[in-house]
């Protein structure tokens, strides 16, 4: 393309109209709009402070500041932080919430709910569970182990240097990364995603207000560059500066990161995933059970922005039963949309795919409108297009176990109704690639702390296991 073309197609960002991105570098809050960007999803104009890469990396000559901070003190600090993340009293958080709607497709009420529930990520009982489950015990620092020949060894989950490529589909993602990062006691550069530019800096700024010199505050930086910005990424993604790159999702992002991987720099990838539901024949016992199942399935669909959001739902029953379920599900999706106060507008590609199927009755049937408030497509086998904007594909199967053949390594959560049918399904589902089987409706009920994610414990992968042997 000629330069003329590039200019014509390049988004024009007016500096004055741009939303300022705040960067927090080891407790120092940075503002100033040196670099202009445009956000991916909603095209909002953005202005980021200068890219001072030297300040973003943590020199290997300096030990990690929180390396020997007792875990009890780490948790105390996180507890105090959690208490300060109150949307009504915290100006940083307030600003993050007010700007979030400009770059994130979640509805206003869903965003508010996301910010109001940040405190739960800092609950002491969840922090304990996360630490003990992921690292095997509550032991702090070096733990002595007797080897088979009677000799002694000390092992330690050693803090690492991590560059996080954050996901931004919900505010909780930033909190999760900061909590796990703190528990690991390593040093962390958080690369902000363009659909949540504000939550991580707000949390880090709150931390700095507690104590700007606290070792944990000194362990975190959050900066923005456009994903794939070669000049920055090729300088940063190096084992000289980081041990690990932690990618919290996004197929393109992971592909981007992979080209920089080399010996000494490990990619910890929480791969992009999709989730499904299985509604067994017990749902058709009576009208109440059908509504119960559809309501639980609607909760698991949610805003349909996350890996845990249900997209394909297998119905153990006839086409007629599936159709009854579809009508009920549509009501539940609309209720969810109402509760969230909006959401992603149905993309035109998806609208066209669904509209084409509308004309393919009886092989396909469609409930709802492409308005982002709920759309249900019933088909004989899963449709091939991406399901988003509260669009659910319902597939009738004679026996629930048949759903397992559609499970693959991209399947994250499988929600099952009723709970007692999980036992008969879980081995087949996990053999196909699924990593999590839940009671329908419980997929997003609690923080992910203390349980495996993507087939591993993320905190366990955020440390380096080192040994001192006799």
């Amino acid at each position, binding site marked *: 393309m000629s330069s003329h073309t590039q200019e*014509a*197609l390049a988004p024009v960002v007016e500096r004055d109209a741009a939303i300022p991105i705040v960067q927090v570098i080891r407790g120092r809050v940075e503002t100033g709009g040196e670099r202009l960007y445009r956000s*991916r999803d909603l095209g909002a104009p953005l202005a980021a402070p200068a890219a001072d890469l030297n300040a973003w990396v943590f020199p290997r000559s300096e030990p990690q500041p929180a390396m020997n901070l007792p875990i009890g003190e780490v948790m105390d600090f996180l507890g105090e932080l959690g208490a300060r993340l109150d949307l009504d009293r915290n100006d940083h958080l307030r600003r993050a919430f007010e700007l979030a709607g400009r770059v994130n497709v979640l509805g206003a009420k869903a965003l508010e709910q996301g910010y109001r529930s940040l405190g739960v990520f800092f609950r002491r009982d969840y922090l304990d569970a996360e630490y003990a489950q992921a690292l095997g015990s509550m032991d702090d620092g070096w733990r002595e182990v007797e080897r088979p020949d009677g000799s002694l060894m000390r092992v330690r989950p050693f803090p690492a240097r991590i560059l996080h490529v954050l996901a931004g589909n919900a505010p909780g993602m930033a909190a999760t990364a900061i909590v796990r990062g703190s528990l690991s006691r390593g040093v962390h550069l958080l690369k902000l995603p363009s659909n949540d530019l504000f939550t991580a800096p707000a949390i880090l700024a709150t931390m700095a207000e507690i104590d700007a010199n606290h070792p944990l505050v000194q362990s975190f930086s959050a900066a923005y560059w456009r994903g794939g910005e070669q000049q920055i990424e090729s300088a940063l993604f190096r084992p000289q500066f980081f041990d690990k790159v932690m990618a919290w999702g996004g197929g393109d*992002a992971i592909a981007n990161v992979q080209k920089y991987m080399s010996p000494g720099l490990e990619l910890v990838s929480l791969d*992009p995933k999709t989730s499904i539901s299985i509604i067994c024949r017990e749902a058709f016992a009576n009208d109440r059970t059908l509504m119960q199942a559809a309501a639980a399935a609607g909760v698991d669909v949610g805003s349909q922005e996350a890996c845990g959001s249900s997209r394909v739902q297998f119905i153990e029953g006839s086409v007629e039963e599936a159709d009854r379920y579809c009508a009920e599900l549509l009501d539940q999706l609309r209720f969810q949309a109402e509760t969230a106060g909006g959401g992603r507008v149905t993309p035109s590609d998806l609208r066209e795919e669904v509209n*084409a199927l*509308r004309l*393919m009755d009886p092989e396909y049937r469609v409930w709802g409108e492409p308005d982002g408030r709920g759309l249900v497509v019933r088909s004989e086998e899963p449709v*091939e297009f*991406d399901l988003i904007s509260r669009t659910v594909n319902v597939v009738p199967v004679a026996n629930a176990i048949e759903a397992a053949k559609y499970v693959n390594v991209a399947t994250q959560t499988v929600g099952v109704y009723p709970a007692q049918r999980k036992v008969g399904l879980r081995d087949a589902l996990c053999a196909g690639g699924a990593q999590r089987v839940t009671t329908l409706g419980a997929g997003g009920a609690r923080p992910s702390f203390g349980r495996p994610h993507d087939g591993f414990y993320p905190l366990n992968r955020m440390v380096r296991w080192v040994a001192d042997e006799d």
Partner: protein
Amino acid sequence: MDGVDLVAERDTPLHGAAVDQLVRAIDGEAPYARSQAQLLPLQIAALDERFQKRRAQIKVLDQRARDVGVDRITRLADIVPLLFSHQTYKSYPESFLTRGQWDRMTKWLGTLMTKDCSGLDMAGVEDVDGWEQRLAAAGFPLRASSGTTGKASFLPWSQADIEWHRRFNLAALAFQGLPPEHRYICISMGNASGPHRPVDRSRVLAQGYAKPGQIYNLFERRASIVEINRLGALRKAMVDGTIAPADLITYETNVAQRTAETEAGVQRLIRVIKGAGDTPIMIHGGWAAMLQLVQAARAAGVADGSLPAGSVYEIGGGPKGAQLPDDYEQQVHGFFAGARYMSLYGMSEINQPTACCSCARRHIPSSLVPILLDETGEQVLDYAHGATGRLGLFDLSMEGRWGGVITSDLVRIETDPCDCGLHGLRLEFIGRYSDQAGGDDKLTCAGTMAAYIRGAIDP
């Protein structure tokens, strides 16, 4: 010009007075003579005539019109939500193809057609080529996208469209100073026949300009859409998890065979060029194929600028995502130095090309209505005094399907009189929105199996 007069031939009034009046202006300067101010009321009336007739025939159009609440076209903005994107013509479930559900494919295609193809017997159809040929034999020709990656699109066409396409293209070439004369060696960098639009263009050139027996194609066989089908099946098998490693090796072997066939074809065409003597050559192809020919010809000792006097070359489309060197245009033009370069701007979705006048500006024929849009394709831009935006088009000649399309092209439209003296609309191609580079910065943890596919199968 030979060929039937399609408008006069049919019962009158067929489409209403406005459509007939505009579509009839085919030859010479007639399609480019009238100004925007003169044309617009007539074009709006013609759009409404087309809309009223087609919505009764095309289910998808009627559904769309009901969704957006459009009942009449009284201004250009009314047609905007009714423009079809390329997505519309690939909205079939791919399993119809991969499982050979030809009745369902036909039913799907039928929702986009002006004629009723229901009840057509698909018994014995074995693959997508067989399906296409069964439809063509029953009077329902279609055109498939030639893309070797991604999902294929299928556009219903008609015999009348094939004839319109031929007449519009020959008329545009004549307007550019190339009246049909059977005195060329015609070379096409594509297939001898098949349901791809570049093949139609080659056929028109051969019909209008080839010396008897002097037609050469890179592939002297029918274009097959089975290859696209096979690729789709492979991708689906990967997503389903039913793929076996041996299938992948078979696929890579097929790719190697195809590469070898292309190389052999290029060498055969170079022999044709070397043996042309004084007979001028008319050559037509896409950028990637043309570059391959040029590089091979140079390697075979054919000097730059050595084509016979009076030769003509034409290159269609953009690089279409192919990995080409930065200087591919210079490399190609350098080889053809001295030959006449014909530059037409058209696309598979419409019957009519735009032609360049003596000032090298592209003129839009009056039966092709441009609709200028913002980047999202939702807001109409006023181009009464010239404007730049995303191009939508309505081809008033389209018979087999809906004539309204939205493109990914960024263009400038001018309305002031051209230096050549013609008053009609002009168009300048600026770029393609889909060519914009950029990584994914918006991260969510959601993703499908499609993200787990790598290599040649990844579109």
